[in-house]
């Protein structure tokens, strides 16, 4: 379809203007605000004890959630891609469920399950603090990041088919050897992409973690909770901006990595 030069330019302008106003402008403003007092102040506010412990907590949660999602995510992907069983569609739908659930609802649901008076509330009496403790935050973050690894690895498993794995079996490889030497290398790009998505999402989770955290500065605040608490509780707008900018820079890094991975995967696929 040949569009007139005028139409082409109009469409382009409309699109770019929208993106400028919606995305670029706000981000530009906050970057400006964060650094208008100089890099020193920015640095000071992201290195306060509260900020550092928030960063540590966020990273700790990521360090727990990522391996869990890798191990179980690959397992679920294998079950879905290789298995033939009744209820497979239900499992598939359940994996996609977290996308449809509001973060606040995630928090409430976890409290209904693990909180005092909840189904597994009895665990509190054993001395395990789930809600208002690290485990609760881990569970919340795992809920929202669950689909990523599965959805990235499953299509790859479908694509490569079972031939290579069967060939390995005929050559004498045990199930574990086949998985380690053949399946895992074959899915490595999909898995990596899923892990990056998981990390980005885990660092950015707010609503669900807010509900299940006791939200004490320096103790049970993640970076995202720090942002809102500084703004809301401390009226420390600048501190909030600084923390937000830090998170934004992390998000940008994630974005760059995602783009690079995507390009590599596309190149690899074309090689076949």
């Amino acid at each position, binding site marked *: 379809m040949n569009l007139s030069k005028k139409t082409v330019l109009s469409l382009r302008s409309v699109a770019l203007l929208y993106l400028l106003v919606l995305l670029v402008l706000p981000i530009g403003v906050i970057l400006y605000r964060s650094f208008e007092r100089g890099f020193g102040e920015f640095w000071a506010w992201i290195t306060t004890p509260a900020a550092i412990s928030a960063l540590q907590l966020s990273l700790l949660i990521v360090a727990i959630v990522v391996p869990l999602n890798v191990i179980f995510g690959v397992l679920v992907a294998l079950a879905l891609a290789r298995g033939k069983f009744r209820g497979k569609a239900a499992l598939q739908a359940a994996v996609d469920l977290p996308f449809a659930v509001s973060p606040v609802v995630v928090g409430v649901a976890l409290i209904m399950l693990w909180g005092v008076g909840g189904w597994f509330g009895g665990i509190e009496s054993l001395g395990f603090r789930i809600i208002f403790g690290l485990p609760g935050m881990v569970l919340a973050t795992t809920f929202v990041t669950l689909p990523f690894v599965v959805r990235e690895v499953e299509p790859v498993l479908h694509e490569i088919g079972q*031939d290579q794995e*069967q*060939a*390995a079996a*005929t*050559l004498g490889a045990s199930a574990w050897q086949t998985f380690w*030497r053949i399946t895992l290398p074959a899915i490595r790009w999909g898995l990596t992409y899923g892990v990056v998505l998981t990390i980005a999402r885990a660092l950015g989770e707010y609503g669900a973690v807010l509900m299940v955290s006791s939200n004490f500065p320096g103790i049970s605040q993640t970076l995202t909770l720090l942002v809102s608490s500084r703004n809301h509780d401390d009226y420390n707008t600048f501190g909030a901006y600084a923390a937000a900018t830090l998170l934004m820079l992390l998000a940008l890094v994630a974005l760059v990595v995602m783009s690079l991975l995507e390009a590599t995967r596309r190149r690899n696929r074309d090689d076949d």
Partner: protein
Amino acid sequence: MTINVVGANKRYGDFAALDDVSLEIPDGSLTALLGPSGSGKSTLLRSIAGLDRLDSGLVEINGVDVTYATPQQRDIGFVFQHYAAFKHMTVRENVAFGLKIRKRPAAEVKAKVDDLLEVVGLTGFQTRYPAQLSGGQRQRMALARALAVDPQVLLLDEPFGALDAKVRDELRSWLRRLHDEVHVTTVIVTHDQQEALDIADRIAVLNKGRIEQVGTPADVYDRPETEFVMSFLGSVAKLNGVLVRPHDIRVGRTPELARQGEQTSEEAGVLRAEVERVVYLGFEVRVELKNAATGERFHAQITRGDATALQLAEGDVVYVRATHVPEIAAAK
């Protein structure tokens, strides 16, 4: 290493992939499992390999019951239609895979890999990746990989199906020559009757999950036991309901001339037919005929010499006689 399959059964829901199949494969032979899609030939091969499980029946390799053994335990080599190359490994690593699993010493592995690559004509390709190889090269690598572990039997599932016609022909003869040198009991699945006739010592013809006939290429071609086998192995012409090969039809201008030549033990009658079309196909001439009595259409295949001598034209009335009529057992 002989392979023995007894009473193999496998169903997928209502569909019978294998229906009471029994087959003995002699040691050192190259046997083809030949049949159309859905005939069960791949299922049979994969059951021998242990990649598919039988519902019931027995599989023995070299006298050992392997029915419940995993592929790893059966000591087989398997070559897949679409190569199943380990894409993330080099050619050397692919071929060495089985040996590395068996924890052979590095020096032995290197020597064996280089040796095999020479046998399959891929010397110098050690460090390439499968993506950099052509289809034919990938399949030769797959073969080297399968042979690296000195398997008792070599199983190939439509190994040339994904290749161009020319490459297919080349690899076909090459496989036969390789077999003559290496002498491993080999079973090859194919739907291409030319391929089976070309390279196999014995052919097992399958249809709808059952074995229709087992025999040498000459057996199944000249002495088919069922209509299916006859139709599948080559072209057929129907003369008054009797199936014959088009090249076993003698054409003459008079009944006497048609009776000349080889006599069959059973004196097949002479038929009057009308020439509909004469097609010069290069080395052979196809004469499309219509049975004057029944209107049935069939074609005969005669040499150029005969065609020139007869000077056939459209509309001519001729007399045809079958010089060889295979005795087909009652339909199963």
